[in-house]
């Protein structure tokens, strides 16, 4: 927290609980202007709650948060004037057409008639919605609706944009379309606060990533820094028989992360010949039948699994 003027978002000691359930347990974050910050976490980790507090939808129980230089608790209107939010659930009016939705946003941003017309046409064009402009939003596909949602967020030229799981439920092509838009926005100097459960997305877009787990930040840094926290990659063992899978699970239990549905085991391994041989020897010693084996260099998935317990309460790799 050095120079507040350069920070688009600055948060310290943020706490929130619903009843006796603590959702955020003291979060500290600083996001410099013109960067993409990604908050990564499983469902229920507190990502949406963080976005709701920072976008003035709900109040925190403790701590301080400033967005675009304004305190979210004491000056919410100034925060609202500076931000745009695209939430997890589409915030478009389904009974209005795409064009009418954008015009409504232009009116709510108090643009003149001339600006409204230009801005609406620009955004429809930019988000590839010109053809569907006169159709009700209820007829749009998921990808189109998300694009309209983003376009509506941009009508007011926000300086800080919150994207809460912007690509959840989108097909791969639409997802890439959203990524492209996000990159263009940052090129224009906008700050993006992105939550996602897709590591690929954070890796692809974010300048800095923070991993949220049970209301606490368990790691923060660039994608590279986070990957460096995992000494090596992993070996993926695929089994054809549940018996082999279970034996391997028992033998390697200490280190392995298992996916029972897929009969797969993910074993941390640096990929060196020496350590691979050691692993194979162990499997061989127990006469475990492995279907396929593949070696993976570290990616953010490893970081994520290493830093967080997953939703099935399975083994957490500690370290």
């Amino acid at each position, binding site marked *: 927290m050095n120079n507040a003027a350069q920070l688009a978002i600055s948060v310290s000691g943020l706490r929130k609980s*619903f009843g006796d359930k603590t959702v955020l347990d003291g979060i500290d974050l600083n996001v410099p202007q013109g960067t993409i910050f990604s908050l990564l976490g499983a469902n229920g980790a507190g990502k949406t709650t963080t976005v709701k507090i920072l976008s*003035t939808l709900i109040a925190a129980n403790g701590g301080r948060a400033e967005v675009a230089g304004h305190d979210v608790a004491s000056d919410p209107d100034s925060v*609202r004037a500076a931000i745009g939010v695209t939430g997890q659930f589409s*915030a478009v*009016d389904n009974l*209005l057409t795409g064009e009418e939705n954008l015009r409504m946003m232009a*009116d*709510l941003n108090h643009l003149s008639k001339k600006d409204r017309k230009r801005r609406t046409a620009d955004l429809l064009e930019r988000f590839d919605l010109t053809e569907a402009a006169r159709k009700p939003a209820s007829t749009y596909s998921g990808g189109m609706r998300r694009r309209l949602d983003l376009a509506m967020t941009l009508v007011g030229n926000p300086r800080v944009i919150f994207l809460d799981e912007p690509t959840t439920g989108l097909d791969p092509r639409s997802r890439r379309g959203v990524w492209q838009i996000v990159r263009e926005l940052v090129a224009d100097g906008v700050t993006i606060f992105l939550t996602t459960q897709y590591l690929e997305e954070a890796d692809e877009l974010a300048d800095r990533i923070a991993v949220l787990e049970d209301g606490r930040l368990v790691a923060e840094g660039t994608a590279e820094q986070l990957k460096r926290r995992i000494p090596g990659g992993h070996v993926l063992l695929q089994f054809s028989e549940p018996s082999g899978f279970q034996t391997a699970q028992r033998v390697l239990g200490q280190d392995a992360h298992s996916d029972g549905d897929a009969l797969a085991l993910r074993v941390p391994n640096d990929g060196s010949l020496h350590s691979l041989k050691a692993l194979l020897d162990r499997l061989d010693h127990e006469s475990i039948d492995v279907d396929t084996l593949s070696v993976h260099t570290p990616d953010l998935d490893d970081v994520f699994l290493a830093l967080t317990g997953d939703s099935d309460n399975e083994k957490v790799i500690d370290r």
Partner: protein
Amino acid sequence: MNAAATTHPLRDSTTMVRRNLKRMVRYPSMTVQLIAMPILLLLLFVYVFGGTLGAGVGGPSGGRAEYINYMVPAILLITIATTVQGTAVSVAMDMTDGIIARFRTMNIARVSVLTGHVIGSLIQAFLSMAVVIGVALLIGFEPRASFGGWLALVGVLAAVAFALVWLTVAIGQTSQSVEAASSLPMPLMFLPFLGSGFVPTDSMPGGLRWFAEYQPFTPIMESIRALLMDNPVGDDLWIALTWCAGIALLGYVWAKKLYNRKT
């Protein structure tokens, strides 16, 4: 940024009213359903029950012709009640959609989202009542109100609609689903029956009669009836307007509180 602190309640409300009117046009089945209900009740009571009930309401001629003049005020209140049922549904639709979260994170006059619903519904209520009165006139309704009486009538109906719309804007926000929202304002539909809407209250048994005489819809209906028939309104008008003011204030405060909650 320079305009961060200033809001434009009038302009924002106009935008929201326009939005709500467009939604009504786009979702006509609801509007049709909301107008059809009071018209069906009107026809049912006039043609099925009217011949018999008309004898009980007194008046020079009795019968069906007398009865329609007696029960139009109740039908007008039922029209308002069905309209505000639509209000509750559209407020609940907003709340379950993500759009309300968008509005809440924008620097717009906070109340405009609610006033958009309120004014939109008032317009809808008056259009519906115009249709209902039109049908009533076609089947023999003979109002005797003077020009001033009609003006006063519009004022009373506006006050009633305003009060009930604010109440249901609050109710719409409390409901967890659109289905729940559509049934919550149901009691409003029944209050005209449990008052002087369709039969005089003196024909009812003890407890019910007490309720019927003191519940808010009775003085409202008595006032409307007196204005339509050019009879003296007496104290009923002031009692009715006091009820409306109280309900409107309660609904407004409750609706705003629900809208601004931050938990």
